[in-house]
């Protein structure tokens, strides 16, 4: 019987009393998601009848996530909160999960629209892309050459932000910035480092490297230090304070941004809970209640965005490095 | 021949030594002793346990029971190094060679002399040169072993054994791959060693050798000690009887077959590096001997004829029609079979059952689905195994579990099973015992009387002279001369093989 509703009242099992929400992340061992997990647990504690299953594949692959979702379907969890490695590849399995009565909510890196009930964007792509350009512009004093060092060419949300950045660059406020290259470090420290070095060498006038990925921003920061270009080339992008603190201190990174992963995990858990409980507002065009975050509106495409990314610099990075 | 010093105690004495492999008793309470300054011939049929005995003596196998005493002291070896340190060395039946290393290093491998922590290459080369000088052979000590001929490799192994100044030197079929000239060379070395007081164990299937070099003999049969004594006190027939446990009809039984019409004709067979302008004819019911020194290129010609060498050119006519042989399968389809000389690498599939080995070239004839044809496969395999007196437990036994000679029989059986018109036997009796050798010779006779044509490549002069109707002698990749049976004498055949045929003809 796969049509069984574990959440229904009067279920004899003690376990069934709890709403089981599985958080499927891109890969384990990623500080960002570990922080999101902390947020989810905070939400679970507040909601009292929620059990969180935190899981993800070893390497960030869609196939690995599919296997995991498959087993979650078999376990008949109540909801799946997922950050997808591929917006399309996970749609079929997500649909299957929804057919079996599991509520699927995506967060961070989203699923295509028909694969989920709701997508919780950490912020919107527009804001993130723009923020990174602003940080680069501010660091280099308004004008100069910039380059992007991304993760792999397949990383969905990175690509989305890069597209946004390219579009934003056409706008007059960024007219002084010139994007000279986009390279990929495959989230490997050695390759990212080599690519960063390549950028520094082949573009002597380069002023800033934007890396919307933690491994990338780390490697670029190290390359700038090693090449003794601190103060001449600035690195910026997205990273966790705990992982970036060293590079802010070394001066290679003036500012970087990230949204609050704890809040993201917290809100995603609340949203999933609302869907499981069948709250009338939990639908496209409605809103979900997100505990201490207040309520979050869902647009017609089922997407919701949280706040603007938060910017870190030498003044506040140490404080946050202790948190996530 | 030096008198055996029987009054002294033996250098090496084995008593009650047994060795079992899964299910097989290879050695059963064997006793053996050898004195300083004597040559002991260790004889026995294929699979009698000779090589196993050598391996227990050299620390490669550990005996299950029994004692080995060296100079009166009981010893036990954990590995080859222990045995070497105690003064026992061997030239094994299998080639122990490291292809990519130089000649000099091959001699010293595993025990290179050190000087201040690093290998003393100068000394290695110097001493290698001295060794070869002592052996009176010329070998480039810096050449890689893979570039040497089989005979030259053998001398490297012998040099390795000699370099250790051992008290006991064991030679396990050292002459199997050597030609006449090199064999004589080897005898000289053996006598030299004996004179220097070394004890030598000499294993061979060739009786003329036993009588030429040995002082005493020990006979093994089925892993058991049978007899021992002085060579001077026995005749060849007695030895054979001891070894086989029955009498064997010796000599080369020339089948009484008159060759028929020409079956195979090879003309102007060439290869860029291996041979040039080789032409010969082969008649139905004929045995055509191919003689030459080792490395004369006979095997290469035969392999090319069998379709294994793509770069060979020339015309091959079979039964009056010209045939094109591009691969071995073509050759098999045309009724040509080639029994290769290198059993381990070219002949047998060692970890496959006897059954599968024998039927491999004729799978096309057996059928596509082999499951249903099991009985037929068994019948073929059984037929040839029995005909060749194969010693095995069952047809599903892996070939690797058989003794060297029995492996050779499996390979022979495999090629006979293709039911060929022409069968090329490349050193067919290399390393097989006298009883089986006689069986092979009988069998060759039987083949020609059935109308087959046989090409017999052999480095054993008596075998070629005794069996062949005609003899083709090759030298350095070319046909040097062809002899009719009546013209061939050991002297002129050997002379032709050494390349001095013109001189003979002129005389």
């Amino acid at each position: 019987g796969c049509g069984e509703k574990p959440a229904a009242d009067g279920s004899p099992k003690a376990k069934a009393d709890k709403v089981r929400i599985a958080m499927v992340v891109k890969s384990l061992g990623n500080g960002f998601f570990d922080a999101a997990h902390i947020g989810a647990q905070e939400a679970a504690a507040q909601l009292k009848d929620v059990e969180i299953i935190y899981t993800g594949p070893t390497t960030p692959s869609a196939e690995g996530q599919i296997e995991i979702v498959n087993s979650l379907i078999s376990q008949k969890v109540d909801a799946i909160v997922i950050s997808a490695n591929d917006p399309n590849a996970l749609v079929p399995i997500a649909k299957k999960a929804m057919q079996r009565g599991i509520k699927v909510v995506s967060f961070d890196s989203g699923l295509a629209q028909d694969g989920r009930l709701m997508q919780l964007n950490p912020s919107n792509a527009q804001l993130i892309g723009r923020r990174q350009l602003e940080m680069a512009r501010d660091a280099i004093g308004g004008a100069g050459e910039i380059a992007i060092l991304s993760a792999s060419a397949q990383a969905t949300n990175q690509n989305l932000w890069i597209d946004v950045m390219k579009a934003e660059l056409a706008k007059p406020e960024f007219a002084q910035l010139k994007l000279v290259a986009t390279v990929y470090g495959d989230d490997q420290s050695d390759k990212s480092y080599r690519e960063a070095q390549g950028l520094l060498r082949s573009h002597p006038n380069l002023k800033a490297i934007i890396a919307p990925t933690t491994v990338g921003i780390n490697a670029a920061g190290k390359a700038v230090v090693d090449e003794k270009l601190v103060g001449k080339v600035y690195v910026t992008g997205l990273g966790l304070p705990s992982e970036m603190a060293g590079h802010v201190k070394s001066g290679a990174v003036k500012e970087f941004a990230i949204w609050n992963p704890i809040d993201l995990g917290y809100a995603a858990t609340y949203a999933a809970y609302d869907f499981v409980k069948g709250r009338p507002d939990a639908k496209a065009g409605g809103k979900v209640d997100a505990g201490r975050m207040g309520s979050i509106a869902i647009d017609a495409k089922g997407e919701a965005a949280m706040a603007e990314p938060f910017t870190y610099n030498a003044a506040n990075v140490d404080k946050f490095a202790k948190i996530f | 021949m030096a008198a055996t010093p029987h009054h002294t105690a033996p250098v090496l004495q084995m008593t009650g030594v047994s060795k079992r492999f899964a299910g097989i008793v290879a050695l059963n309470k064997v006793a053996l002793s050898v004195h300083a300054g004597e040559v002991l011939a260790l004889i026995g049929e294929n699979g009698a346990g000779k090589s196993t005995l050598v391996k227990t003596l050299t620390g490669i196998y550990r005996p299950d029971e029994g004692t080995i005493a060296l100079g009166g002291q009981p010893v036990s070896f954990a590995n080859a190094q222990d045995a070497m340190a105690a003064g026992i060395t061997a030239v094994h039946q299998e080639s122990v060679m490291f292809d990519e290393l130089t000649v000099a290093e091959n001699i010293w491998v595993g025990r290179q002399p050190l000087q201040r922590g690093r290998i003393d290459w100068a000394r290695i080369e110097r001493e290698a040169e001295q060794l070869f000088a002592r052996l009176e052979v010329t070998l480039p000590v810096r050449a890689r072993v893979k570039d040497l001929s089989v005979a030259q490799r053998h001398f490297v192994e012998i040099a390795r054994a000699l370099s250790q100044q051992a008290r006991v030197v064991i030679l396990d079929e050292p002459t199997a791959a050597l030609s006449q000239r090199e064999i004589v060379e080897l005898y000289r070395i053996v006598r030299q060693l004996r004179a220097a007081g070394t004890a030598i164990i000499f294993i061979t299937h060739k009786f003329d050798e036993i009588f030429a070099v040995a002082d005493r003999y020990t006979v093994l049969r089925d892993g058991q000690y049978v007899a021992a004594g002085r060579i001077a006190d026995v005749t060849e027939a007695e030895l054979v009887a001891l070894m086989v446990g029955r009498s064997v009809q010796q000599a080369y039984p020339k089948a009484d077959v008159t060759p028929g019409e020409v079956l195979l004709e090879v003309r102007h067979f060439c290869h860029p590096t291996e041979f040039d302008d080789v032409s010969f004819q082969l008649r139905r019911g004929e045995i055509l001997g191919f003689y030459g020194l080792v490395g004369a290129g006979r095997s290469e010609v035969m392999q090319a004829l069998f379709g294994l060498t793509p770069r060979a050119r020339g015309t091959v006519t079979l039964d009056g029609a010209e045939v094109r042989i591009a691969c071995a399968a073509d050759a098999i389809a045309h009724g040509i079979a080639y029994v290769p000389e290198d059993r381990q690498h070219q002949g047998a599939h060692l970890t496959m059952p006897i059954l599968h080995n024998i039927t491999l070239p004729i799978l096309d004839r057996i059928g596509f689905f082999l499951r249903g044809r099991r009985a037929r496969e068994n019948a073929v395999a059984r037929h040839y195994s029995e005909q060749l007196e194969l010693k095995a437990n069952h047809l599903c036994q892996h070939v690797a579990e058989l003794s060297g000679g029995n492996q050779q029989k499996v390979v022979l059986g495999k090629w006979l099973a293709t039911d060929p018109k022409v069968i090329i036997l490349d050193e067919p009796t290399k390393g097989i015992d006298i009883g089986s050798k006689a069986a092979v010779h009988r069998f060759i006779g039987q083949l020609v009387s059935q109308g087959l044509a046989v090409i017999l490549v052999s480095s054993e002069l008596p075998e070629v002279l005794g069996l062949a109707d005609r003899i083709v002698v090759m030298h350095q990749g070319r046909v040097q001369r062809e002899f009719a049976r009546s013209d061939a004498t050991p002297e002129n055949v050997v002379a032709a093989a050494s390349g001095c045929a013109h001189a003979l003809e002129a005389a």
Partner: protein
Amino acid sequence: MKVLKQREFLLACSIVVLVLLVGLRSPVFVSPASLANLLTDSTLLIMLALTQMLVIVTRGVDLSVASNLALSGMMAALLAARQPDLPLPLVMLAAAAIGLLLGLVNGWLIGYLELPPIVVTLGTMSVYRGLVFVLSGGAWVSSHQMPQHFIGFPLARLLGITHLVWIAAAVVLAAWFVARHSRFGRDLYAIGNAPSCARYVGIPTARRLLWTYGLSGLMAGLCGYLWVARYAVAYTEIAYGFEFTVIAACVIGGISIAGGTGTVTGAVLGALFLAVIGNALPVVQVSPFWQSALTGIVILAAVSINARDGKHGGRQILPLHQVDRSAA
């Protein structure tokens, strides 16, 4: 001997040509600083390729090096992060010791249990990689957690040359000595040439294999520290897939996967060749999407060139043949 020399000469030439070609397109690449950088960048690959060479010479392969590197590197980073006052040599020693231990596990399974190397190291590759995650709890060790001397060492300079290069040079010398002038090394060649014959001449095969894989592990451990310090970050996935780069370097350097042959020069040149490509691709600004395909083509081209003289075209039996032809 001559053939090998020739092959290595060819490889060295193609490296120089490659560098010059890249230099033609983007002159920065051939600036002294950039070349020095290239050298520094190739050191880890060179060191790993050298011990991998010893393994391949024995007819084996060590697929677990990258996982071993990650595990030892992570352990070193954790140690340094928890005990910032620990002297650096101790940390390096710890990394090397962990690597050695992991390598010895491989060596024991392969040498004493006579299990096939590819299978054993395939297994330990997963196990070691998994252990990185388990032991670190999946967390990163990032630059501000590591003490400054820990991070600074690899790129610090002695007589104007980075420590990395000094270490690599020492390793090259040591490898050359082992491969050419020690009994241990020569035994490895013998084992690779004819494994079943090695025991006939009294080579303790099991012990030799144990220490060969041990050595490979030791090097992975040392490189684990250097890697983590160099890039100032440690996480589960570091050096993921690097084992194939190391093997490719050996293969390009003419070390036969069939065992028994291979020189230190070959391994060093093979590693340099790959390092040049890895460094050149970002500089010449080919589309990043072409990088992997180009690397593949280059590897295939290099091994095809190597293979040409490996093919034996029959023996030379006819001594007079060529003379005849030329006379005619």
